């Protein structure tokens, strides 16, 4: 009988084996070249989604509720009366934030191109697009740091009013997610430079990409709720 390997451990850690065909996850021996078996592929005892990817989808669905709780809190508090201190109208610069948001969304495009490049085995373009993704993310974070500094200068901080508390905590946690994403992408880039990330590991990039796209999509919601809804 064939041996079984359960190396599909962390997202993006499949060990030095071949890649894992989506249809038969966790049933491969390193070194085996197993085509998708028509008898078992897509049968009734697994979903056909690779383990690491499924786990990332589950984590992201969990994270949705995490952000959801803070977004709901922001919405609950945005039209509370009797607040003192700066209001959104006093501090927001919509054009500036729109530009950094656009850059963040473009990073998703770069991420898609990076994944496509490593799937073709084009490592040079993969690294370029991966760097571009991380760079765009860093520009967004830079914009956020500038924004936070600017708001603080205008007299808004976490303890000024409910807007300050809910705004800084929500966008700060999103910024922390983007920062983790940048570190992750740069780690992949470093591995690629050392030749440890090959076409066979494209799934690791794909999983990181899922996370990155999620963080972008959440920003679309946050940006709409905080900046674009007519201010009370």
């Amino acid at each position, binding site marked *: 009988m064939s041996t079984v*390997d359960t190396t599909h451990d962390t997202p993006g850690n499949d060990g030095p084996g071949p890649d894992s065909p989506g249809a038969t996850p966790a049933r491969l021996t390193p070194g085996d070249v197993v085509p998708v078996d028509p008898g078992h592929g897509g049968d009734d005892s697994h979903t056909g989604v690779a383990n690491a990817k*499924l786990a990332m989808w*589950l984590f992201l669905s969990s994270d949705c509720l995490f952000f959801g709780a803070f977004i709901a809190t922001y919405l609950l508090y945005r039209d509370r009366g009797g607040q003192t201190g700066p209001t959104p109208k006093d501090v927001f610069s919509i054009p500036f934030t729109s530009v950094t948001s656009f850059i963040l969304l473009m990073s998703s495009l770069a991420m898609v191109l990076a994944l496509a490049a490593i799937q073709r085995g084009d490592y040079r373009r993969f690294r370029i697009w991966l760097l571009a993704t991380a760079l765009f993310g860093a520009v967004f974070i830079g914009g956020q740091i500038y924004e936070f500094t600017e708001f603080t200068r205008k007299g808004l901080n976490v303890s000024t009013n409910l807007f300050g508390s809910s705004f800084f905590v929500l966008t700060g946690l999103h910024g922390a997610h983007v920062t983790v994403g940048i570190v992750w992408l740069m780690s992949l880039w470093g591995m690629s430079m050392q030749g440890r990330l090959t076409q066979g590991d*494209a799934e690791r990039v794909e999983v990181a990409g899922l996370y990155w796209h999620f963080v972008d999509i959440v920003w679309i919601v946050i940006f709409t709720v905080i900046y674009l809804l007519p201010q009370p």
Partner: protein
Amino acid sequence: MTTVTRSLPKTSTPAVPLRRPKATTGFWSWFTTVDHKKIGIMYGAAALFFFVVAGVEALLIRLQLAGPNGTVLTASQYNTMFTMHGTTMVFFVGMPMAVAFGNYFVPLQIGARDVAFPRINAFGFWVIAAGGIFMYSSFLLGGAPNGGWFGYTPLTSTPIAGGALPGHGPDFWAVGLVMLGIGSTTSAINFIVTILNMRAPGMTLMRMPVFTWMMLIVAFLTVFAIPPLTAALIMVFFDRNFDTLFFVAAKGGDPLLYQHLFWIFGHPEVYILILPGMGIVSEVLPVFSRKPLFGYSVVIFSGIAIGFLGWGVWAHHMFATGLGPVTITAFGLATMLIAIPTGVKIFNWLGTVYGGAVKLTTAMLFSLGFVAMFTLGGLSGVMHSVVPADTQQTDTYFVVAHFHYVLFGGLVFAIFSGFYFWWPKIFGHFLDERLGKINFWVMLVGFNVTFFPMHILGLTGMPRRTYRYPAGYGWTGLNQIVSVGGFLVALATLIFVVNVIFSAVKRKPAGGDPWDGRSLEWSIPSPPPSYNFAQTPIVMARDDWWHHKYTEDAEGRLVALPTGGSDDDSPSAAIAKVNAHASEADGRGIHLPSPSFYPLLVAAGLPFLGYAAVYQDIYYLIPGLFLLLFGIYAWGLEPGTEEH
């Protein structure tokens, strides 16, 4: 993606900073193991330890309340005791114990060799252990949590300078629970991926054992319930430490927001605790009634229904807060509704036992005890859907009685049933049945003596969470009875511990299939080999192992197949021997995930980060971040399975 272009050259096996641990036996191997069975045992041992700790806290509470004007504890110590009793029972006993059984038996029941992410599995356990050590270290460092297990704001969210609660208690509580959330979420994701992706061929969803099904539902509930709690805890922590205004009513903040966020977690949490118990009982009753579970798919679908409806009833914990008539009507109705799938299951269990060849083993007794006690708890539970009644019962001992009937009479009885049922599989020897039956009866009597009078105490107005009561309120006698009952429960637990030791010494050996079981875990030797199944089983039916052993004649009577059977010395036990023999031969070729240091290292970083958060001290941050980052990177570079 479907074609393999080339393998990595062997030389690229990354240089991992620490030498890979090799040992899979011996004391130190437990710290690096990634075997789901060993991790399951560690979860169980940790949960049992915390069960005793929480029990001691409960006994101190009962000593304090044994008479009017108790002097055993000060008010502040009493606050600590009921807070830590509740927190420990929910987060360090209930959840880890379910995960313990799940870890051990879900892969066995679906015919898998391990879970999908063995190292993340180990990480989950170490995070829970680290979280427990972190939270209990608060007793020595600046005050234990004292704001109640649901930590209502603004009591818990007022900064220390505000003087609402002395010490760092709520900080330890909030940070510790965030850690537990990390552990629970990772283990839940692991369960879902394992169950959805790693079933043996032919193991369709509707052939899965009910326990595995319930763990799947619980895992989904955990994945979605933990984040609102984490969010609420972050807000509490920020309010306390960084002067945010989330729950500061004077500045427009809304303390009720916390209650909503907490109970959006908290009510699904109730089902996270009880559904595994329902799963265990649904395994035990059919085996000892020698009948298939009555209405298998109804049990599954009502479990799923509970999983969905569980999200729509949270505000029944808040009826006394003045939510308005429309809201309370909606939540009252939803609460009545959720009693239906729960009640359906009771009838399924009764239908399973009815007309069966019932064998009253200890495991069976505990399961029957579960059905009876849980029904009582369910009845007092559905009373809370009647809002006017609930408003009277809120914060009285009636509520305390209700949730102990559900969680102790329900969950803990199911856990003990699971102990007696699966002990032979896990350790290869039986727990003593005579001591077991004494254990059961003492626990059943002790439990009812403890918690039944609380209904009456509650209805006569005794409020929960008061550290003393005056004489002459008519509460003295019943409280004395309750305290005696508490010590009976402690005695029952002691009998169990004695039984564990006694049975380990006596070692009455159990074969692979001591109970004539139905699901796949009984088809392999006890204790199972590290690779579980020598050959991946191919599943043809629900209760597949049973159908390997029995068939029915024309009149529907059971007929043992020549290759099947129950008795260890019957000729049919030969199949198990053949299986075991095959295992020895085949086991060598099976590639198992290798042990690893890094799950433990990464988890060990978290308490340091926790202390850094509580004390806002950079010196704790440095070792915490170092362990975390070093662990994660080394983990990332380490292959899951070492090449031989």
